[in-house]
């Protein structure tokens, strides 16, 4: 069956079965490798992308159920995304890196919604993104730093 999907502002016509996970479409059909496969059950957050700006787990949504604009880390380009990217680099956040695109997509959605998050708000927003290397302390510090950079935090 053919599906029409808009990813990072580009529309694609795709011939896939209706239950194909969005993640497979992104990685295997479109060659967009930012979102990662981690668990296949929406438990780890490696595959996080935005659907109309809201973070979703692309491993657990079928292509037939996607109704809106998809943004992946490759397409995240606004001030919030850039401030987070800068903070991530400045604090040397990633270790193995596998979860980091998902971490960033959750962080971007958080700061767009809540420009001045405290630690508890950050914990709640990021609880769905696992990091086995243990970069949580630096992720939190980088989110605070990005919030200050975009003027949301005093």
């Amino acid at each position: 069956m053919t599906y029409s999907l808009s990813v990072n502002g580009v529309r694609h016509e795709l011939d896939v079965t209706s239950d194909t996970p969005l993640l497979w479409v992104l990685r295997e059909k479109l060659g967009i490798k930012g979102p990662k496969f981690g668990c296949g059950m929406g438990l780890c957050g490696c595959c996080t992308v935005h659907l109309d700006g809201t973070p979703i787990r692309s491993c657990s949504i079928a292509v037939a159920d996607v109704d809106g604009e998809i943004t992946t880390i490759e397409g995240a380009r606004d001030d919030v995304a850039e401030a987070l990217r800068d903070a991530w680099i400045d604090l040397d956040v990633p270790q193995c890196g596998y979860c980091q695109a998902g971490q960033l997509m959750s962080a971007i959605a958080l700061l767009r919604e809540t420009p001045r998050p405290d630690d508890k708000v950050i914990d709640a927003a990021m609880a769905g993104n696992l990091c086995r290397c243990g970069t949580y302390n630096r992720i939190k510090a980088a989110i605070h730093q990005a919030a200050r950079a975009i003027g949301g935090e005093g």
Partner: protein
Amino acid sequence: MGGGFGRRASPTVDVVVETAEVVKAARTLGGVVAGRAIKNMWAREDDIQGGYYRPMAHNRLEAVLGDDGNPTSWLHRIVSQSSVKGNEFEFLIAKGIDMTSVAGASDMPYRVPGFRVELHTPERGPIVQWMRSVGNVNTCLAVECFVDELAHRAGKDPLEYRRALLGDASENARLLKTLDLVAEMSGWSRPLPKGHGRGVAIQDYWGTKISQVAEVSIDGNALKVERVFCAVDCGLVVNPLGAAAQIQGGILFGLSSALYGEITLEGGRTLQSNFHDYPILRMPQAPQVSVEFVQSDAEPAGVGEAAVPHIAAAVCNAIFAASGRRARTLPLVAAGFEA
């Protein structure tokens, strides 16, 4: 591919062999095009259920205390499957002793006149392999929790007790310095609210001297690791930001195992399958980890594995300080704690 934490250094190179088998099978079906890269991707269930586990281990320790409360004799009996027997790392077994099983026990830093370590190496069904940080994760827990129990038996502060046992031996000078630093970082002597407690653990991990203090709170069975302090002397620090990342990450990695890391085999099958029944630490459960390095001109030693072993012992000792309960088995959630 992400972090391997020891799994990628498989002595049987099982992932490569599996990929080669797939290629061979595909070739007979005409499905392989020469020159094309092959990717072998495992589902999470394959990873968790596919064998190669950290060896299960049991430790029993006995000591005789002198009039001053310090041990005059010490017996540490370890039972652990070997992760090198039968593979090309078997050269690490000398005179029947797998040195990766006794590391952290036979070279522990405390001076005890009568000192004996025994190793029993049963051969069991599960395929085992080293997992960050090999045998020290087991022995550090045993030694450091035992020393803590001795300190309480002797009626002494656990940190001061360790300081006395390290003595003035010159080979312990750098480790002692990290202990002094972590005492200062953690505010060791400052009182804590009711239900809170601090625990300390120290170890020299292959040349990297580390002391850690964990602060926990206990409310009924609910356990929260509030914060962790870590003082490190790894010799000359080449990349400070990178080194601190490895220490912080190692501690949170070790904490995942200590709190949640249970694998259950039933009829030869692994019951756990994905992150719902094999959880790892999430951000809300992750304590802030403060790291400081001792200025040192000694030759650089490793930091990737060095901070992992201590955290389980530091947390178990903190649980005792907070609640009077001794946790002697891991993971802690399987021992009745909620985290």
